[in-house]
């Protein structure tokens, strides 16, 4: 009974408008990464020269390397630490639980720039030289709270008797952890890891303040280079967009496909 034709049109227009707003800039950025000229506004024919330039640019390749290494290592460490801590939190006394959760919320609620300068001050006070190591440590620090935050709800949903049941059946605490708890919270752990990875991969503010000595990740490089128009940045951005989009599509579509399969099997 609702929805005249006119109203349907307004809806379609609204949605189309906002999607155009979201995607047109990214699309134009990607299109002009294949432009044959330096211009980002007039099309001079298809070329992959900016990609060639990108792969021949030492600084860019090193930024890609730094970004990937830091993202992978920080994801691994923060996922392990975050998951174990979350399990610990769920079994802790209320005071400790609330203490950790509240302190943990600080870097999440604070503006990134505050976290960034805090870490910068810390590293300088400890006289640690800024570089890839400080960047890695900083990324672990800001990702771990998010992993904890993602895993905790899964643990809350767990039957509290289940660990007791495992141990009652003869499992050691370590076995109960590894064979019962971890498999049950795996979906949370995986989404925590993906969150940690994308956050580290995309991070600019914190990396910018805590790295130095020529160590740059992709974001820092884009920041320093983007003052001038430069199609190589478009090429680099295109690669970033494609990677993130593919990851997101996989993450979002896999469960849907699985559901369909299950339905098909019924």
């Amino acid at each position, binding site marked *: 009974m609702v929805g005249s034709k006119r109203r349907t049109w307004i809806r379609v227009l609204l949605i189309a408008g*906002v999607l155009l707003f*979201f995607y047109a800039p990214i699309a134009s950025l990607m299109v002009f990464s294949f432009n044959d000229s330096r211009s980002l506004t007039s099309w001079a024919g298809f070329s992959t020269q900016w990609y060639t330039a990108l792969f021949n640019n030492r600084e860019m390749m090193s930024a890609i390397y730094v970004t990937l290494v830091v993202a992978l290592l920080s994801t691994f460490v923060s996922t392990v630490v975050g998951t174990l801590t979350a399990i610990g939190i769920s079994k802790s006394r209320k005071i400790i639980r609330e203490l950790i959760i509240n302190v943990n919320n600080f870097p999440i609620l604070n*503006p990134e720039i505050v976290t960034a300068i805090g870490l910068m001050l810390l590293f300088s006070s400890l006289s640690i030289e800024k570089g890839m190591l400080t960047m890695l440590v900083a990324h672990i620090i800001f990702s771990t709270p998010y992993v904890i935050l993602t895993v905790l709800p899964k643990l809350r949903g767990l039957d509290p008797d289940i660990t007791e049941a495992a141990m009652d059946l003869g499992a050691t605490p370590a076995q109960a952890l590894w064979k019962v708890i971890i498999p049950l919270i795996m979906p949370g752990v995986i989404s925590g890891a993906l969150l940690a990875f994308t956050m580290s991969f995309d991070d600019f503010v914190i990396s910018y303040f805590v790295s130095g000595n020529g160590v740059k990740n992709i974001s820092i490089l884009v920041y320093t280079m983007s003052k001038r128009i430069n199609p190589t940045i478009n090429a680099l951005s295109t690669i970033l967009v494609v990677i993130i989009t593919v990851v*997101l599509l996989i993450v979002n579509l896999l469960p849907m496909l699985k559901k369909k399969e299950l339905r098909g099997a019924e």
Partner: protein
Amino acid sequence: MRVFANLVRPYLVWMSLFIVVPMILIVLYAFTTHGNSVMAFQFTLDNFGKFFDPVFIKVLLKSIQVALVTTFVCILIGYPIAYVIANVDERWQTLLMLLVTIPMWINMLVRTYAWISILSDAGLINTFLKSINVGPIKMMYTDFAVILGMVYNFLPFMILSIYTSLAKMDKAVIDASFDLGANTRQTFMKITFPLSLPGVISGVTLVFLPAVSTFIIPKFLGGGQYMLIGNLIENQFITVGEWNFGSAISLIMAMIIMLSMYMTRKMDKDIVQEAQGGNKW
């Protein structure tokens, strides 16, 4: 199982060192004089006094103003979008929300950089305008460009937040409203909108906080002269080397943010309470 409780111990140490100590350091730097070494500090309030210079106050007010306008525009655009998405067929909802949220995950610098070649004097819009003999219009390095960039970056959060509150609303409540004689408009005003307010409020937090502290967007789209509080902090640490003053500004900003979060939270509570009949018993 108390054995597992021990798993938090390493993180307690870690957290103290890497989350608590940095906070203390910022406070320490904010209240001390010169010298980038912790050992040589001397208590002072000068760093805060310095901030009350009209130049800096203006920056602060400008930041708040830009963030407020951004938040307002995000509600204005985000609400109808979220409402439409929440009311289409469920299969479409998942897809549309995926499309809305994908940009959130794309590097913010990339997203902001993309606008430069669109807005600049020789950019896509002006090229188009020239072809129809209009313009050129100056867009880069204006408030418009900065606010546009912020809306572009933060709108998905607003849509997501409002959509979530609309989607989890019990559809039977809407049916009930129709059933009791309210037409579409009355149902929206009396039922749907009040029930979605918590989503709007959390959207406000998600947009206002990053908008007030970002320094990338003003730098890219506002230019080197465009100064918001985030840029001011960046300058103190990266260019000027005034860490003490920079820390004081950060502290002030953190306070403002805490305050605004406290207020929105309170507003949220009030609304919920009013929603539940207004009086405690």
